[in-house]
């Protein structure tokens, strides 16, 4: 599974993307975010407040209870501020 980070999530975590293989009990975005927190102090800090983290799977906005699978491209980012 490929995970992408944007904006301050990227700067806190220190990488723009990584390939991860979460355990089978990770079945949705919320579970993935919890599991990612254990990867490094940077991950833990960036993902501490899940309320300000948004997610997309395969380039579509999804809620945290959306299922994730091994082939997915998952993106985590703060609320968007374009325009």
């Amino acid at each position, binding site marked *: 599974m490929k995970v992408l980070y944007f*904006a301050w999530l990227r700067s806190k975590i220190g990488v723009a993307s990584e390939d991860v293989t979460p355990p089978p009990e990770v079945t949705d975005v919320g579970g993935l975010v919890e599991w990612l927190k254990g990867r490094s102090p940077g991950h833990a800090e960036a993902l501490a407040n899940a309320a300000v983290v948004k997610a997309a799977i395969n380039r579509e906005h999804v809620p945290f209870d959306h299922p994730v699978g091994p082939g997915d491209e998952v993106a985590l*980012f703060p*609320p968007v501020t374009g325009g």
Partner: protein
Amino acid sequence: MTIRVQCEDFDVGAELEALTRGRTSIGGVTSFVGYVRDMAGGAPVSAMTLEHYPGMTERQLEAIAGEARRRWPLDAVLVIHRYGRLEPGDRIVLVATASAHREAAFESCHFLIDWLKTRAPFWKLEATPEGERWVEAKASDDAAAQRWRE
């Protein structure tokens, strides 16, 4: 329907001309151009860097433009959004809609920029005298987008 995500500036006059050329059923074109401001939250801003999510950005802009065409009778829709480093006074975004009727042009253009602000994956990093800071999403932008819920 023209959607572009690009680093370089755009020529508003040429873009609007291309949108309408030879199409004599158009009664009006409403457009919005967003610019980098020199102040934000009371602090001077010397530059702004726009990050985006290539691939998702285009897809989201197309979905938003498609939704506008579904809701209003439009002859043409144009969205151009820049990314990269910009300075105060620089253009960021151009949204334009063409219709036989001006109400449809106004409403759909307003809808496009409101939805774009809450759905298109762009993030702004501002350079200020106190250093760089990521722009936070505004509650007023969420409220503006909510207005268009069906």
